[in-house]
């Protein structure tokens, strides 16, 4: 027995031992009295059997390719050696093994579980997620090193601590409350040269537009983030362009949750997003083949879907407009007759319940008008240029493009994101896939186009144009605007007026009062030239839709973004359109301060948000 204990001591270093006392206790608990000798023998045997079972069970562990021995492994070993298995220890969690000081006892804590509580619990545990397989690719170069980060964002790469911090700070700043901080963050995002690795993360954040569609502010911020990324000259967007475009398109086209409340100015957001879209397209469109076609297709789809709300249609129109007059010509213009019927129905409905929808309809109307106007203007211009410059091509185009390229990497946004090289679009269209609806498109002559458009818009279209007599327009040729004059040298067409009597661009402010027969003049029209405002307002009742003189609840919408309910005198709809500058080479500032911006009296227009129409985002 002494040797026994000696051996036990020795073995203790090697194995866990079950002492005699434990055996005796266990025997006692089942009512058996054991002698010291028997207990000792039993203890030793138990130890041996335990070790044997453990050794056998480790084989099951190894074949299950695990490091941790599980209860299941032990049970399997027991089962194969014809021994009863141990039940009740199948849980994955470790069982707490507790000592009880008083009795020098160790036991597994086995708490009672209230089954009723468990059954009636409200937080029902979710089922196990489906087993699945994910793929990670480690691209190795010849030397066996992983490819440098940035090029393969999915590759297993860890962001450095600093980058991670930067990412957190930037996103926090941009999505946070402090406008100053946001500006700083956006500026940095626009110029930082070391954030290539973070690009996928930012793109991911931006793709979150869908989850914040109720929050105009956040949407705005995210769009600004897009702008900063797009303008960062050090970033190669690659295929992320697609993702960015889809986020921007979302803002343009989707009936955002924020649109439900008419107090929310989602129009401006759409305008800004459209602007951004054209910007992305012109600067990065070459990165993704077929992008132009895809965008056009989705815009067309929305436009031709009568179920879509008007705000979506509005988005499609401004989107097309932003993509250039060719896009308008090929998608919007052919679709206009069909669409017009729907729009008219909306605008003709004067019921109270339709008030909101009707207001929206006016927005769409205005947007179409602007788009169509520019279409006419640009078409006329292109015809002129084509007529005069045989080999010169389209100088305006090239200069415009070059001018943009030069500007784009800088901090300041491109002054003319909407500059449209018709050739560029044409080439895109030619490059487009077969079977596109506009593939069989045949050009409509300018006069025919004008006639048709005039039939829709009537004088509201005409007032913007000084059309030649052949068109039979009611509007006399307007005086040549300074803009017009400026265009000439740039386009190197001094004999423009002589050679052509085609419709030309005028912003005929002196005409509009004449046309304005409406008694309701907008607040601002008196103090400002405001021709477009009054025109658009007038045209509706005159040409097409007799506007109700005094309808109940009155809202006046100003496209500029502020929407105010003033003077319950009737429903009014104001659009503020600025004429399209004929040439893209002009710095916007040159005309921005000269042209009136209706609806934004006090605030000077930000340079970079200025566009062909003042549907810009107030910031």
């Amino acid at each position, binding site marked *: 027995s002494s040797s026994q204990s000696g*051996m036990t001591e020795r073995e203790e270093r090697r194995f866990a031992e079950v002492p005699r006392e434990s055996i005796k206790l266990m025997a006692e608990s089942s009512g058996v009295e054991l002698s010291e000798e028997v207990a000792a023998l039993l203890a030793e045997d138990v130890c041996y059997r335990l070790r*044997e079972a453990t050794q056998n069970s480790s084989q099951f562990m*190894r074949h*299950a390719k695990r490091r941790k021995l599980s209860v299941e492994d032990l049970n399997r070993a027991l089962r194969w050696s014809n021994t009863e298995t141990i039940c009740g220890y199948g849980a994955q969690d470790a069982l707490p093994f507790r000592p009880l000081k008083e009795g020098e006892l160790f036991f597994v804590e086995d708490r009672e579980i209230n089954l009723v509580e468990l059954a009636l619990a409200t937080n029902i545990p979710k089922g196990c997620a489906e*087993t699945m*397989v994910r793929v990670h*690719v480690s691209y*190795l170069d*010849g030397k*066996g090193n992983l490819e440098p980060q940035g090029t393969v964002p999915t590759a297993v790469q860890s962001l450095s601590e600093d980058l991670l911090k930067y990412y957190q700070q930037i996103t926090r700043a941009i999505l946070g409350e402090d406008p100053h901080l946001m500006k700083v963050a956006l500026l940095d995002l626009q110029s930082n040269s070391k954030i290539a690795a973070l690009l996928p993360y930012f793109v991911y954040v931006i793709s979150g537009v869908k989850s914040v569609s109720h929050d105009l502010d956040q949407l705005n911020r995210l769009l600004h983030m897009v702008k900063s990324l797009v303008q960062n000259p050090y970033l190669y967007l690659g295929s992320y362009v697609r993702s960015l475009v889809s986020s921007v398109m979302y803002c343009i086209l989707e009936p955002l949750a924020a649109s439900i409340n008419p107090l929310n100015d989602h129009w401006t957001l759409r305008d800004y997003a459209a602007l951004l879209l054209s910007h992305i397209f012109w600067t990065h469109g070459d990165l993704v083949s077929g992008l132009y076609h895809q965008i056009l297709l989705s815009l067309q789809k929305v436009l031709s879907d009568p179920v879509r709300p008007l705000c979506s249609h509005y988005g499609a129109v401004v989107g097309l407009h932003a993509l250039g007059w060719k896009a308008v010509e090929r998608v919007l213009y052919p679709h206009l007759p069909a669409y017009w019927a729907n729009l008219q129905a909306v605008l003709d409905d004067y019921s109270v319940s339709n008030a909101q929808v009707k207001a929206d309809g006016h927005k769409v109307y205005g947007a179409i008008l602007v788009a169509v106007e520019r279409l006419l203007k640009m078409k006329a211009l292109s015809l002129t240029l084509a007529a005069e410059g045989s080999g010169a091509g389209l100088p305006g185009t090239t200069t415009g493009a070059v001018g943009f390229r030069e500007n784009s990497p800088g901090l300041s946004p491109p002054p003319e994101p909407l500059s449209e090289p018709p050739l560029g679009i044409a080439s895109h269209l030619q490059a487009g896939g077969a079977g596109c609806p506009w593939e069989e498109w045949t050009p409509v002559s300018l006069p025919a186009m004008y006639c048709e458009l005039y039939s829709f818009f009537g004088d509201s279209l005409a007032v913007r144009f000084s059309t030649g007599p052949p068109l039979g327009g009611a509007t006399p040729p307007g005086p040549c605007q300074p803009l017009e004059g400026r265009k000439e040298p740039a386009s190197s067409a001094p004999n423009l007026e002589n050679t052509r009597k085609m419709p030309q661009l005028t912003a005929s402010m002196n005409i509009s009062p004449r046309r304005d027969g409406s008694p309701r003049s907008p607040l601002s029209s008196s103090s400002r030239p405001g021709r477009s405002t009054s025109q658009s307002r007038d045209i509706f009742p005159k040409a097409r839709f007799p506007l109700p003189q005094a309808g109940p609840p009155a809202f006046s919408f100003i496209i500029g973004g502020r929407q105010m309910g003033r003077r319950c005198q009737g429903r009014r709809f104001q659009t503020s359109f600025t004429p399209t500058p004929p040439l893209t080479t002009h710095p916007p500032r040159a005309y921005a301060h000269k042209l009136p911006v209706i609806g934004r009296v006090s605030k000077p227009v930000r340079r970079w948000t200025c566009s062909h129409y003042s549907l810009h985002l107030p910031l």
Partner: protein
Amino acid sequence: MAAVQDGPMELDAEKEAKPEILSDGTSNLSGNTASGTLSSSPLTAAPAGGAPKMEDQQTLIAVLQFLKRNKLSESVEILRREAGLGEHQEGSQATDGSGGGKGDGDGGDANSLLSRVSITSAAAPQSMPVKSDCIINIFRCDLPFMFMLSEDQPDVSVVLSAYSQQGDPPLYQVYYSGLKNFIESVLDCHRAELSQLFYPLFVHMYLELVYNNHETEAKAFFDKFSGDQECYYQDDLHILCGLTKKEHLKGNEVLLDFRTSRFVLHISRDSYQLLKRHLQERHNNQIWNIIQEHLYIDIFDGMPRSKSQIDSMSGSLAGEAKREVNKAKVFYGLLKEPEIEVPLDDEDDEAENEEGKPKKKKTKKDSLGSKSKKQDPNAPQQNRIPLPELKDSDKLDKIMYMKESTKRIRLGPENLPSICFYTFLNAFQGLTAVDFTDDSSLLAGGFADSTVRVWSVTPKKLRKVKSAGELNVIEKESDDVLERIMDEKTASESKILHGHSGPVYGVSFSPDRNYLLSSSEDGTVRLWSLQTFTCLVGYKGHNYPVWDTHFSPFGYYFVSGGHDRVARLWATDHYQPLRIFAGHLADVTCTRFHPNSNYVATGSTDRTVRLWDVLNANCVRILTGHKGPIHSLAFSPNGKFLASGSTDGRVLLWDIGHGLMIGELKGHTDTIYALKFSRDGEILASGSMDNTVRLWDSMKAFDEVETDDFTATTGHIHLPDNSQELLLGMYHSKSTPVTHLHFTRRNLLLAAGAYNSQ
């Protein structure tokens, strides 16, 4: 040396009881020292007299032996005549009486007799040398599986009974230290070789002590000498250490393993002579007996081996492989590619489409190549193993394979493959096995919850064949009938196969992607159809957990190996195995087909790799050197080499033709569960539990080995320690053990494993 006295009567009795055992034994007459194949001799029958008479006899025999020891041969003769003792009886008593139990064939009696005899012999310890040793050679290592499978008590007792013969227990330490001192005092060149004796002697002496109930002495013996053993025997010592009672010996697998085979040692003739002389001088018969009975000393002429040479080859449960075992000719060459030129042209004519032209070109190239390439002299005859006929779909697949091969990236140290890791997420149930199809289109996972899941890794979804009723409606003449039979409604990315009732430890796709095999703890191998996603056959036979299964590269045949220590060869259309590969001393953990389908490699817990001939189920190679259970095997694409990975984290490379170890790749820190050669064999990829994939320059490893004639005959290699040079890259996964590796036909490396969040 070993004087054998055959008692004819007893021999007959033995033959009746266990004919298959003895028929294998060969009797060697004394003086046949050079050969390690010592002798087999009969177990002796029970003494003629009853129990009471026995003690007298014991005494008489003891006296006789005393006289013999003192060379009083005349007295011996006289005493023997007077006592009426036959010489054989003396011999039988001297060795052991356990055979008596065998004679009856009754387990209970055998045991009682056994214990009686051992008690008596303990009472009359025979420390003196016996001239006429009877060597009990019960088992030959070729036949151990019978004992593994049968759990009859008598057999176990017989095994154990070999230990009854013994000397004075307290003297064991003296014997052992005597030998130890001797070995430590010999010349350096012999010391390393003779040190090989330590471990087997130690274990056998310890077991003898335990068996004879000298528990205290056994423990003391263990404590004193266990520290001297090589570190790679630690695991075994751990098990031994817990074994302190005679009762425990019965049914202990490791012990049975140890007993059922002779521990094989390679010792140069010089060293052996040295040892023999020493033992004779010291009359250290106890040691000598153990050597004769339990050890197989393979004596070679030539320089003694160095310590590192010995260490690289030892470590298995039964010592090294006998050289003669690895002498058999192995046809490791590849079979000639089937001529698919003619039918291919037909196909082209039939379907003269855009792909017609490239196909033709490919075939021409290939046919030219096969013509210029002579039949590999090392290849087996084409029809040595009957192979299934190629179906049209197989030929199409071959064409696809050739096309892909032309786009294959040539890998090398300067051009490593990209790695694509398939991580199993949410595999709470435990991922236990993975396999890819050869064309990398499907992925199968075996899980501990008894399920097998199949994923499509391409955009093509998995579809079932329509039901019988629906199939009747289909127009069978249509060109796209194969497409029409598929049920589009069942299309999904993955399918779950239910059927096993235990963890699935092995999965293997058939080369034609129509079938999937899975082996499970429930003792069955199941064949699943990948057309209907149902179980077609359950192959029963192992009756114990089946650790691995693998399809032949030509389909039809497959091999499985399990806890019952045998590997079995099956054909898919036979419910019983065609061959049983028996010989491993412990579980068969992994099985792989040779690329020419004529051989099967198995890895085992006994730390050996064996190569089996499918034709006749012979073991043609025993490869030792691993220090832990082997969990992965991979043949090189040219069939010449084999790589094996084990729990010790080392990959060993083998030359199959010579049966030699030609490389050791150290670096992994945990069990290697996955090994794969690139398609051209330039790179070996290994995946381990340590969450890394490592790429090795196998070309360099193979090239650097010079297997000259001397090496080939002696089997002594000197391995350069160049693991670091051969390691081309190491890539960490994110907390995901690597369970499987696969090279696509274009040499992209695919790895798979389950993410382990803990």
